[in-house]
């Protein structure tokens, strides 16, 4: 109930009582209340004219790094006797220092700085408006409005460094890189021997082969190293995720995707990212640091979804990825996924699956009982069968128990080519 309305009712009640009983004392009781209401009306605030700007101490931070938000409010209108400002931080942010609400008096042309520090988990945090309210001194009349003060910052996913991820897709790019291209030419690794052609450097000469065939000279050939196209596919389907308290397996998938993107781009490759789950979130392939930033930001804002269309991997738009290129799927996997993955392999893609283990992850959230042990055992058998089926189709599968940091797993399982049978760490 608003305060003027309450006071009005009291005044009305007292006056009615006074008129009804013809007793002036009731009217006397109403007078202070009337005066109070009149004072409120007299000092009723004017609509505020404010200029608000929001500045952030950083626009991209790591998960534990705090961000200081400063709201600068300039009063361009008349005096605001009771000025209340409430800056509601986006969901997921925790205020660790200062306050996002303030009550004060704001004089004309006065500048007010509201500063507070927040911390949050991975994500994109968008600030849009600030709620301000002005009241008269008695707090009877209030003018409340939302003023725009947009800004945003990213809390980037955790990134670990992996020195090398060995891949060897059949299709390579035209630029020099680090991936063996199955073609002879300049390089480091020995590839073969061929007859000398004019223009070949003399230091390539193979004296033994040339000595065996006096009629011609032979030179060594090296395997060319080129850049490749890598398509990272991040599984953001809600149904493939596992939860343990407030922890989600999806966060580990994001961590792996960020690390792999960083490693592949560091090797000069052309990397694209496709987030499959909520919608079609496609980061067009590119090279270098700019692309790294694009991918990291896409991963920072990635959210899970439960879209029926994307329930299965069948709707994966394979046209986005060049045939015979390297695909890396980061997914806990569900049993229905195997057919689509085998089909992708059959189409000629070189496929690597990084699979955070949902069974081990969820298992730790439960107590010890016979039924849980049995259920875990069944789930593990199902998962092993699924992974074994994928390996039989020559898909490189990395089964990742997420308690082990990703860079350790990558160092063991991805450092050397194991594309025929894949890696199994369990």
């Amino acid at each position, binding site marked *: 109930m608003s305060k*003027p309305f309450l006071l*009005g009712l009291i005044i009305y009640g007292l006056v009615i009582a006074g008129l009804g009983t013809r007793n002036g*004392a009731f009217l*006397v009781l109403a007078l202070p209340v009337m005066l109070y209401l009149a004072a409120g009306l007299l000092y009723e605030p004017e609509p505020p004219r404010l200029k608000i700007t929001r500045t952030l101490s950083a626009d991209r931070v790591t998960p534990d790094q705090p961000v200081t938000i400063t709201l600068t409010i300039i009063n361009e209108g008349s005096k605001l006797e009771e000025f209340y400002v409430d800056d509601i931080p986006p969901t997921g942010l925790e205020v660790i220092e200062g306050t996002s609400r303030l*009550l*004060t008096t704001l004089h004309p042309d006065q500048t007010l700085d509201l500063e507070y520090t927040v911390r949050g988990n991975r994500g994109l945090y968008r600030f849009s408006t600030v709620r301000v309210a002005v009241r008269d001194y008695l707090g009877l009349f*209030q003018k409340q409005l939302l003023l725009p003060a947009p800004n945003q910052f990213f809390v980037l996913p955790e990134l670990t460094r992996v020195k090398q991820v060995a891949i060897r897709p059949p299709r390579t790019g035209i630029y020099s890189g680090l991936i063996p291209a199955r073609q002879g030419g300049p390089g480091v690794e020995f590839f073969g021997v061929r007859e000398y052609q004019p223009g070949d450097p003399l230091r390539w000469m193979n004296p033994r082969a040339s000595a065996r065939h006096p009629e011609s000279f032979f030179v060594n050939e090296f395997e060319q190293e080129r850049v490749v196209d890598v398509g990272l596919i991040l599984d953001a389907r809600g149904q493939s995720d596992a939860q343990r308290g407030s922890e989600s397996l999806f966060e580990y998938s994001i961590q792996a995707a960020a690390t792999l993107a960083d490693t592949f781009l560091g090797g000069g490759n052309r990397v694209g990212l496709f987030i499959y789950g909520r919608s079609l979130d496609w980061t067009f392939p590119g090279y270098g640091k700019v692309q790294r930033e694009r991918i990291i930001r896409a991963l920072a804002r990635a959210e899970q979804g439960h879209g029926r269309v994307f329930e299965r991997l069948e709707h994966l738009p394979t046209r986005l990825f060049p045939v015979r290129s390297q695909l890396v799927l980061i997914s806990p996997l569900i049993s229905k996924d195997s057919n689509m993955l085998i089909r992708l392999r059959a189409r000629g893609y070189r496929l690597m699956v990084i699979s955070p283990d949902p069974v081990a992850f969820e298992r730790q959230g439960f107590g010890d009982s016979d039924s849980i042990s049995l259920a875990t055992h069944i789930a593990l058998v199902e998962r092993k069968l699924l992974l074994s089926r994928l390996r039989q189709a020559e898909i490189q599968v990395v089964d990742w128990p997420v308690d082990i940091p990703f860079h350790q797993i990558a160092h063991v399982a991805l450092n050397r080519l194991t594309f025929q049978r894949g890696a199994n760490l369990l």
Partner: protein
Amino acid sequence: MKQIALGSIIFTAMLLALAFIVTNDWIPALSIIVLGVLWSAAVWWRNWDWANAIGLVVFVGIAGFGIWRNLPTFWMLLGSVAALIAWDLAHFAQRLTAAEPLNEGLLLWRPHFERLLIVGGLGLLLGGVAWGFQISLNFGWVVFLGFLMAISLSWVVRVARRVNNR
């Protein structure tokens, strides 16, 4: 601030209860004390906005009841002004609790108290003066005042709607 609001609620309750104690009306006096305690508890522990509204209505109603029971009018006037101040302070305390006041002692408290005391004092003065000048109204005046009240009520409703729509 909350302590001052509580003090003013208890003062109001004691003031009104004393008026009934003087005339040996113990049951209303005890009821007023209990209601005062309930209002204080609601402000102290729960910060309930509606408790303030009920507190004001009840205490002004008690002042009216006192007048009906022929208790001293100025005492009841004092009680209703005290109730109004207690209600205002409880709301002010709520607003301060909800936000982080900047230099609260200087910027907000003093002007608020000053205006409140001026309004309360003027209200008391006006009430006292008005009580001194008693006039008898004939039926025509009563009808006119009733008409005026109907218009003012519609104005109050309009103001309340405007406030709610902001």
